[in-house]
């Protein structure tokens, strides 16, 4: 229901090639693209001299980027209001940029041409300001590059490597870390931002404007600034450092961006109801300990694995993948499971049936901000070490950020815990039902051991602690499996030899 009324308007004192057509729209409009092609009035130039009635039309200047119109969001003044230079007139919007338009003149608002919600045409008057005679001249000087009426919505000359206007250089080399010795003072009086009334007072007291520290919005000098300067204590010129000193504690970049964890004790009893992962953990663990567990532990020499990882690490990083020991351990587990599939099974105690699973969906215990979770990596038997590492990274990121999906948390056939990365050597892991086995890897330590010649040599070792369901797994199977797994990790070339 848009009513379009065409008005033919002839704008005086400007040469026109065509008449300006400006449709009026009702306040309730449909959304539309802002870069519509509309008939544009021939752009007027901003004039600084009032017409015969003492009125200057304030033109909406061309912001570049082919923008023909902007929506008026809000007027801060109304017709009849008195305004000073730099006072806020209105806010306009073009696509994603909101711009504040401030007055260039002192005067009185005579006529507002576009109401809130209307589309203002670039190059046409936004508002007429009555300035009377001659108060404008002294404030608009040719050297003034601080014209607030120009709306820089990405002006075309700001391209890559394009010529830019020099910014105001602050005296002295700026090497921050020192607090607040850089004051923003204008280089000379012309560059100082102050309304005519303020300039008049400064002139009256014979004060150079560039000596005064501005406290107004956007670096403007106010009347109070001048009075403060006049009344400053004579003993010392103490410069108020509040505005320019750092806002907070200043630190080096590296320290700023490392995540910190503060440890605080609790001073009184705290009631913590279990929720989310903790709740699930409580329930599953209760069920798990109905399984008769038996354990088997061993010591693995880690040097071969350490060497393998250091060789592969760089290549993995180039592909954006973080490689830890875990992917190697998981691949070895899968290869051992291929020889002993009884350990990759699910047991149903009601029917006394074990289902040996063809997929090695190996669960990896993870400690997240929300608690312990065990997502699994699917089909490890079909994945390379790099694939496993990539998938592990993904699960870790998900566990710590967006959250794990149901798919990731179900369908596991065996689990491995790398508790050693936090601490511990031997452990007694608890089987995750309905799986039949679980392993916990302890931390890597450097210890003295005897080699084949009887000499004492330093080696890196870590411990493995297996737990298995004694209703379906016997000690011999567990030990054989563990030996195979150990063989692969101590001699990675054996892994390569048998890898499909």
């Amino acid at each position, binding site marked *: 229901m848009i009513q379009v009324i065409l008005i033919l308007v002839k704008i005086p004192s400007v040469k026109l090639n065509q008449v300006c057509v400006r449709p009026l729209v009702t*306040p*309730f*409009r*449909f*959304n539309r693209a*802002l870069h519509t092609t509309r008939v544009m009035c021939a752009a007027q130039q901003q004039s600084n001299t009032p017409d015969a009635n003492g009125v200057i039309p304030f033109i909406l200047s061309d912001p570049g980027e082919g923008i023909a119109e902007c929506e008026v*969001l809000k007027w801060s003044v109304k017709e009849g209001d008195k305004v000073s230079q*730099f006072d806020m007139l209105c*806010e306009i*919007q*073009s*696509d*994603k*940029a*909101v711009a*504040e338009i*401030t007055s260039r003149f002192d005067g009185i608002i005579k006529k507002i041409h576009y109401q809130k*919600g209307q589309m203002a045409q670039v190059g046409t008057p936004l508002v007429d300001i009555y300035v009377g005679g001659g108060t404008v001249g002294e404030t608009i000087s040719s050297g003034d590059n601080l014209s*607030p*009426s120009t709306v*820089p919505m*990405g002006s075309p000359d*700001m*391209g*890559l490597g394009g010529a*830019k*206007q020099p*910014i*105001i250089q*602050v005296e002295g080399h700026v090497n*921050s870390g020192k607090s607040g010795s850089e004051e*923003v003072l204008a280089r000379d009086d012309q560059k100082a931002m102050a309304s005519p009334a303020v300039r008049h007072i400064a002139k009256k007291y014979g004060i150079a404007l560039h000596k005064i520290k501005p406290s107004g*919005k*956007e*670096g403007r000098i106010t009347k109070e600034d001048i009075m403060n300067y006049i009344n400053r204590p004579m003993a010392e010129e103490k410069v108020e450092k509040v*505005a320019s000193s750092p*806002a*907070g*504690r*200043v*630190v*080096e*970049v*590296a320290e*700023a*961006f490392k*995540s910190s964890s503060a440890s605080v004790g609790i001073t009184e009893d705290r009631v913590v109801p279990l929720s989310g992962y903790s709740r699930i953990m409580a329930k599953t663990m209760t069920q798990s300990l109905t399984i008769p567990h038996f354990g088997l532990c061993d010591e693995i020499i880690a040097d071969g694995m350490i060497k393998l990882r250091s060789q592969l690490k760089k290549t993995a990083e*180039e*592909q*954006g*993948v*973080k490689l830890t020991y875990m992917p190697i351990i998981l691949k070895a587990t899968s290869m051992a499971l291929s020889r002993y599939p009884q350990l990759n099974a699910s047991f149903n105690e009601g029917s006394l049936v074990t289902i040996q699973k063809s997929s090695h969906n190996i669960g990896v215990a993870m400690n997240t901000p929300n608690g312990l979770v065990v997502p699994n990596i699917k089909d490890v038997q079909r994945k390379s070490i790099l694939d496993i590492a*990539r998938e592990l*990274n*993904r699960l*870790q*990121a998900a566990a710590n*950020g*967006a*959250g794990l999906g149901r798919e990731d948390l179900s369908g596991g056939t065996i689990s491995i815990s790398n508790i050693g990365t936090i601490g511990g050597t031997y452990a007694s892991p608890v089987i995750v039902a309905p799986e039949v086995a679980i392993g916990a890897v302890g931390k890597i330590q450097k210890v003295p051991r005897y080699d084949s010649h009887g000499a004492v040599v330093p080696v890196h070792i870590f411990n493995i602690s297996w737990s298995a369901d004694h209703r379906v797994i016997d000690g011999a199977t567990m030990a054989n499996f563990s030996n195979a797994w150990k063989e692969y990790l101590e001699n990675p070339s054996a892994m390569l030899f048998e890898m499909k």
Partner: protein
Amino acid sequence: MRQISPLSRRSFTTTSAPQPVRVLLSKSTDPYLNLAIEDWLFHHGQYDKQTLYLWRNEPTVVIGRNQNPWKECDVKALERDSIHLVRRSSGGGAVYHDLGNSCFSFFSDKSSYDKNKNSLIICDALRHFNITASPNTRNDILVNDRKISGSAYRLSGKRCLHHGTLLISTHLHNLQKYLYVGNPYIKSAGVASVRSPVQNLSHYAPMLTHDLLMNAITKEFFHHYGHRCGVELLDEEEMKKIPQLSEAYENLRKWGWRFGETPSFEHKLQYTFLWGTVSIHLHSEEGRFKKVEASSEPPEVLEGLSSLLEGKAYDRHGLSEAMEMMEDRGSTVTQRRREVEEWLVREM
């Protein structure tokens, strides 16, 4: 895929003459405070320095300066799930923030304002993680045609702000849950959001975190401006003591800013209940009911509601207030009114 090793990387931009810099990092995740800090930096920051401000918010929906919150997001769901609703002072569309989304703000002097260069600084930072990103014509940043960052701007006589988001590991399903394109029954002025398919950066670089990325952006920022500085850590309590900042903070929280700045819109609703029909045609201005035509068949159910709604806040509190003031016409009518109120609250 050709690998670009960090040692031989080329910057996208040519570095210009050195300019002094300032970097600030907010320790707070309060969206009102973070935006108030931005407002304070915009009006009262040091104009001679290229300034970079880094921050992130707890779960929040942020709408643009001139948007209609009821059209852009599910306002009731936000209330129910305790998600903040904040209106920013720059233009553009509605976005969902959580701790997996990082925000950056570049403040420049008008003469040295270059929003494309800012985006390229971000792209150079992403290359540290072997992510190839580039800005499009709308200055969104894309990786493999998926949007990972959007920008908006605010300009005044002397100062220019370019700020934007970076999706690292945001809960993307919440974007769909809380933001929607249009209630088709609302016709309004104002800016509509432009939908784009999005993706998290952690999809391309799994170990990417907020700290790692902000670190990289800061390094590239220094590289481009040829200066370094210490990073100012902004503490919540200290910031609230600054008078202009706490004033901005209070204003951002006010209903009048968040809802009242909504441009005018029309909403036409109709429904058939078991006992009859209801038809409501309402106009809203500044987030309040204005000029309502409500009628029902039988007529006594909504008689007089039109005038009672005028001027009330356009939300369920305003509606509830108005309905309570209606003349009592017996228990059947009251029961029917309750049904109408429930339906209206769902629709609004």
